[in-house]
């Protein structure tokens, strides 16, 4: 293996490959920073570009865009509550609050370093454990997905904020939003009112940009006469020792969650970042502080979405089946070059596989070097007065949301959710459960219908398959844990 890896480095370190790796990660960072355009659109745009390259160089570049975007995505989340990528929505919760308390530098710094650690660990995982993980991944059928999503849903509770009732109402609202569009199996339209854009469901990007960034902008406009509060407080640009101590475990746990969750085709970085955030909050000694701007809330999701990039490569490189939209594009690029990724890829083209692995190590180092010096530059953006910042956010958000499908209706949806988000904020409803439920509902419903179709409408399918049963038990524990904890303390105090 060492020999293979060294050969891989030899290939990845040639001038051309280094250059395209650098180009890829740079483009990725930019794509990550801009809202709307995600790694999928970014890699697709550059496909014609790769026709002249050899396949190894092409994938080195495309993979660079993919994981590069995960680095960039956190920037606008932290600075202006504008998720640059769907997988960075969770970063808004604590990242933006940290920025508001003058700690944008630390948040940006930990997200770059966390991303680096997670990215590197996930390449390590990809290198050492790819075939067994792929074997595990194919055992994940619809019933297992349903149980995983059920577990995810129980975590909504951990995002509710101050009021349990308001949080659950927000979650229910999200579930409702998630049912808009065509029924996944029968194709029957629901709540689409003849608007073609709604047939595929509400776009997650439009809703999250509206709920997070626009509602914030509206609120800023309301208080725009006040000067920005954080003018001179960007003193500590990098995470301090205390930050490190608190972040290191969330980074490691986030990496593990992100890596394993994304090996399973179809779930991906966004779900991974949510699971990581919710898990951190669940096991934290001070869960009430999440959402007020603590560094664990940034470290966990940002590590998870980076670790997801390594995991997502596993189905593609080992099985020859793309597990995510970005992987599908890479597969397309490979086919164009006459290289058919499949179960024999490792045997037939070991040089290719190892060069990609090596380039991912190199790319992550490049990204760290590229991103850390920017922390200061970005953090200073917070000095921009509201009168300039508000129109800037509005126009960037609109353009970003429009670009996803070149569809103006998406911009209206974003604006509508901006207004909804503004009032939710006024009345103390948290936006995070809406987003989590909106993401999980379609996945969960889809898996439910597939499972029931498989079992001829018999729900025992969720409890007779071992992996599914284990996940269901976890979901049960997660749901009942507050009650158990309450009873436990009661028993102890009475005895």
């Amino acid at each position, binding site marked *: 293996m060492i020999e293979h890896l060294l050969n891989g480095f030899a290939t990845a370190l040639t001038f051309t490959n280094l250059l395209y790796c650098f180009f890829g990660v740079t483009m990725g960072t*930019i794509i990550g920073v801009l809202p709307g355009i995600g790694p999928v659109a970014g890699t697709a745009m550059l496909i014609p570009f790769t026709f002249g390259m050899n396949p190894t160089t092409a994938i080195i570049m495309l993979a660079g865009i993919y994981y590069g975007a995960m680095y960039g995505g956190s920037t606008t989340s932290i600075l202006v509550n504008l998720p640059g990528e769907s997988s960075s929505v969770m970063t808004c919760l604590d990242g933006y609050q940290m920025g508001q308390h003058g700690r944008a530098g630390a948040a940006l710094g930990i997200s770059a370093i966390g991303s680096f650690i997670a990215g590197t660990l996930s390449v390590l995982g990809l290198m050492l454990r790819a075939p067994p993980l792929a074997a595990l991944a194919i055992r994940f059928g619809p019933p297992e997905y349903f149980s995983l999503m059920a577990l995810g849903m129980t975590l909504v509770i951990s995002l509710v904020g101050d009021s349990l009732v308001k949080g659950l109402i927000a979650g229910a609202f999200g579930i409702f939003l998630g049912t808009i569009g065509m029924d*996944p*199996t029968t194709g029957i339209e629901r709540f689409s009112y003849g608007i073609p854009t709604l047939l595929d469901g509400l776009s997650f990007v439009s809703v999250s940009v509206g709920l997070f960034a626009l509602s914030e902008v509206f609120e800023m406009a309301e208080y725009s006469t006040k000067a920005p509060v954080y003018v001179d407080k960007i003193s500590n640009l990098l995470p301090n020792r205390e930050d490190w101590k608190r972040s290191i475990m969330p980074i490691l746990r986030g990496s593990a969650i992100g890596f394993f969750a994304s090996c399973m085709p179809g779930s991906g970085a966004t779900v991974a970042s949510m699971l990581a955030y919710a898990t951190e909050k669940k096991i934290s000694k001070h869960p009430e502080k999440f959402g007020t701007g603590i560094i664990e809330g940034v470290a966990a999701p940002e590590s998870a979405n980076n670790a997801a990039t390594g995991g997502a490569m596993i189905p593609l490189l080992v099985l*020859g089946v793309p597990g995510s939209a970005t992987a599908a594009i890479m597969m397309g690029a490979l086919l*164009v070059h006459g290289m058919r990724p499949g179960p024999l890829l490792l045997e037939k083209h070991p040089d290719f596989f190892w060069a990609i692995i090596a380039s991912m190590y190199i790319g992550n180092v490049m990204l760290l070097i590229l991103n850390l010096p920017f922390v200061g530059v970005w953090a200073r953006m917070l000095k921009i007065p509201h009168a300039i910042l508000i129109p800037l956010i509005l126009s960037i958000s609109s353009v970003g949301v429009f670009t996803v499908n070149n569809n103006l209706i998406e911009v209206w949806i974003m604006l509508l959710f901006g207004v909804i988000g503004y009032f939710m904020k006024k009345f103390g409803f948290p936006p995070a459960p809406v987003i989590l439920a909106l993401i999980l509902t379609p996945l969960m419903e889809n898996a439910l219908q597939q499972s029931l*179709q498989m079992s001829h409408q018999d729900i025992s399918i969720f409890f007779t398959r071992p992996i599914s049963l284990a996940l269901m038990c976890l979901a049960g524990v997660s749901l009942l844990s507050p009650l158990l904890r309450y009873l436990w303390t009661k028993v102890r105090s009475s005895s």
Partner: protein
Amino acid sequence: MKRTEHLLTAFVTALSFLLIAPADSPAQSPLTKPVEFVCHAAAGGGSDIQARFIQSVIEKEKLCSQPVAVVNRAGGGGAIAFAYVAGKKGDPHVWLTATTSFLTTPLLGKSKYTYKDFTPVTNLAFDDFLVTVRADAPWKTMKDLVEDAKKRPGQIKTGGTYAPGTDALIDHLIGKEAGIKFNYIPFKSGGEAMIALLGGNIDMFYPNPGEALAQMEAKKVRILGVASAKRLEGAPDIPTLKELGYNVSMQQLRSIAAPKDLSPAALKYLEEVFKKVANSAVWKEKYIKENMLTWDYKTSAETQKLWEQNNEFCAKTMKEMGVIK
């Protein structure tokens, strides 16, 4: 701030690369501005890759007087793209990727624009469907499968893309021809269905050759037949379903459409452009052969006929399936 500028420069340079126009232009081109090549599916899918490949062929071989940019307008089973292009009447600067969903989406009532609201430009290829089972499946031939399915109706799990995609139609047609019934599980993409097949969550599915070949080489799957009239050039060992006695022949179209009411000169020009694409060595070698598609080139009139036939066939099959009235 200096570094930000560098980044910006890099980004702008990259963008401008994407917009580079072919230098020389044939004299009598009716095109006066860049072409918007609308893809009805999201970035990364089969249609998107095809559109971007065509774009690159046109760009490299300088086949068109104006630059071509691929724009994804995905959503609603193609309905969003269809509505957009149909609204550009008479404009030769808007092209559209058209696969079988171009026919089935309007048939399902999800788009009010049917194929009659467009100008057919060409059909560039056909994509086939392979009847695929896992390599360790008990069925060695189509006959084994059918006999087993007769013994336990509705127990063999098949899969494919959302009903009623083309593969769902094939599933229905095989069932009808053989007098059996499968349990069809819909998936979001061919990739997810393939993973379900490999993991044993479904027993059979209908990938395109491009999706199945790698698994075949690795002996992970067995192909029982191909649902087309002729055997595949790249895999002549696979029998057609017709040879096996099941009259199921259906292929995915890979057509190009343009808005209605094009001037004859404009249509002629577009036909010429795509004829050159179809006959270029890159297209034949890198796209058709690598993806094991069946090469095709049809004129506008021939494409019109192809669409009519396919539309009639899809309508009939979907009525049988009970998805439309």
